[in-house]
């Protein structure tokens, strides 16, 4: 299957009359879209695909979808381990540079696979006393060092270990009786188009050294992915990538991981307009939710902000004149950065109407929730 043969699932959030009765601000997630996204991306890649729970740790959503996540779920905290333990037999993979002894012990007790991020974590493991049998481990490599691009643009982050440390980790883990089954590397969010070819090439080149240290073939490599939520638009890149992957897939089991690409299109954020006003001739809609509940909409980390145009769900039965100017949609905090969208001239809108922001299914929890003691958003699912 190729990317261009996979149709993007669609949902018309605004057609649901129920939008008007939801307690706002809120998120609405659609499990069917999550399942469709997962299946489509896995087919497009032709490899195994683990799910990064940090992108959407909602328990109800996980429960509705987990039967499909057969290649495993990646977890980065003890809270995420709480979500998953007891509920799946698929692989649980705990991967964080901030591993504490308690998280490591809880992960082992939960029959999870550990991803070692540093030699220090290897030492932590060696000194742990646990009764539960330990599953073979995975080592996380630094994407920047693996691709010999230290400090450059792209994957110059603080995750993983250098190749020499990885070989040393293998030797140390062999000494304490733990088998290393795989390698993991992740170049960062939205890096698929630019970094994936180099990751594949570098991993393929490093594999013989690893297998020499292990004394056996490596069972798997997880190449991360960094897939954007509009990954379907990368038709040419996917075709080339699958071709590039072939030598590696002949040698070992290849995995990717995804979060944003699976959950992003499967949820929307809904907020209610509390007031309309004009400030210095500029129309503004003040809403009951914004930056505090959907931080990413404020685009605080973007230099050039491309404001989202939400859909308007009419609740107010009045018929005010259409907007004559572009309207700024703002949230409920006292931060001047709390600008979450815009409405174009011609739009009809009034207080109590709901604004629906699509593509908000991933990283909904990435918000400064305690600011002003504002209520957290409600979460809903579609049956």
């Amino acid at each position, binding site marked *: 299957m190729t990317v261009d043969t996979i149709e993007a699932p669609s949902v018309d959030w605004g057609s*649901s009359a*129920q*939008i008007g009765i*939801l*307690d706002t601000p809120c998120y*609405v*997630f659609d499990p069917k879209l999550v399942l469709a996204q997962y299946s489509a991306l896995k087919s497009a890649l032709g490899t195994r695909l683990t799910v990064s729970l940090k992108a959407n740790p*909602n*328990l*109800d*959503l*996980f*429960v*509705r979808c*987990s*039967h*499909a996540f057969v290649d495993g779920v990646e977890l980065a905290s*003890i*809270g995420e*381990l*709480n*979500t998953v*333990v*007891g*509920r*799946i*037999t698929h692989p649980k993979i705990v991967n964080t540079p901030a591993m504490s002894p*308690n998280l490591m*012990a*809880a*992960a*082992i*007790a*939960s*029959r999870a696979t550990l991803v070692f991020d540093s030699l220090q974590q290897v030492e932590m493991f060696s000194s742990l006393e*646990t009764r*539960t049998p330990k599953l073979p481990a995975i080592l996380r490599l630094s994407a920047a060092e693996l691709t010999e691009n230290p400090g450059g643009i792209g994957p110059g982050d603080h995750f993983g270990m250098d190749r020499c440390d990885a070989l040393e980790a293998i030797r140390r883990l062999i000494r304490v009786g733990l088998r290393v089954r795989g390698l993991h590397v992740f170049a960062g969010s939205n890096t698929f188009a630019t970094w994936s070819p180099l990751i594949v090439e570098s991993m393929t080149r490093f594999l013989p050294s690893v297998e020499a240290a292990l004394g056996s073939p490596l069972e798997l490599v997880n190449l991360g992915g960094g897939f954007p939520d509009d990954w379907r638009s990368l038709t040419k890149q996917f075709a080339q990538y699958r071709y590039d992957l072939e030598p590696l897939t002949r040698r070992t089991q290849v995995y990717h991981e995804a979060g944003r690409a699976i959950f992003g299109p499967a949820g929307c954020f809904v907020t209610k307009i509390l007031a309309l006003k004009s400030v210095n001739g500029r129309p503004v809609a003040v809403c009951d939710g914004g930056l505090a509940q959907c931080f990413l909409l404020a685009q605080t980390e973007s230099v050039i902000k491309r404001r989202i145009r939400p859909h308007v769900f009419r609740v107010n039965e009045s018929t005010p004149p259409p907007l004559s100017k572009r309207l700024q949609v703002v949230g409920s905090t006292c931060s001047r950065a709390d600008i979450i969208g815009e409405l174009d001239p011609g739009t009809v809108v009034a207080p109590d109407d709901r604004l629906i922001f699509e593509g908000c299914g991933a990283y909904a929890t990435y918000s400064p929730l305690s600011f002003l003691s504002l209520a957290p958003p*409600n*979460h*809903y*699912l*579609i*049956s």
Partner: protein
Amino acid sequence: MTAIGMRPLALKNSELGPEWQLGSLRMTGRLFRSPFPGQVYKSNLLMGPLTRPHEYAAVAELEHVSATPVLVSPWQRDAWFVELLVSARQYMPTLSLTVFRMGGRNPRVQLPRELLDESVLLAHDPRPVVARTLASGRTEVMEIWQDIRTDGMDRGENTVVVTIHGPRSAPGFIEFVRQGRPLAAVEVRSLVPLMEA
């Protein structure tokens, strides 16, 4: 056994054989979709307060292999039971008692008022209590056995088995299985008469 697909729409009473008139019929099926398609519901499941490794080890013991999807929340399952009950009473006004299988419950989920009615009984295993009730001479008893999953920790295969014990209700039961709106979410696999009452 009569294989009848998603719904026994074409089933004729004569295909059941003469035994159905004795009054015990059983429908076996499987919930294959949400009974409330498209409905938006609030996310309410809570995680356990786990912090220590031995607690994780204990909860991990609940894990079991299952390809059966969770299609409903605990609240929706109970709401569907209410719909089943209301619909069954419309088709079988002679019903005197309905016994639901209701296993370990989520402690945060309040039972709907309709399931606390005096003509409804909730039991971990309905069979002994139904047998005893029938032995006492009471008839027109509906038994609903189910193992619908509402959480990943639940064992079950979304099976629904509805049995009617009672000659006056049996004709209505066939119509209930054929046309009852709540059973549209159930893939009916069989509808058979039971020899033992």
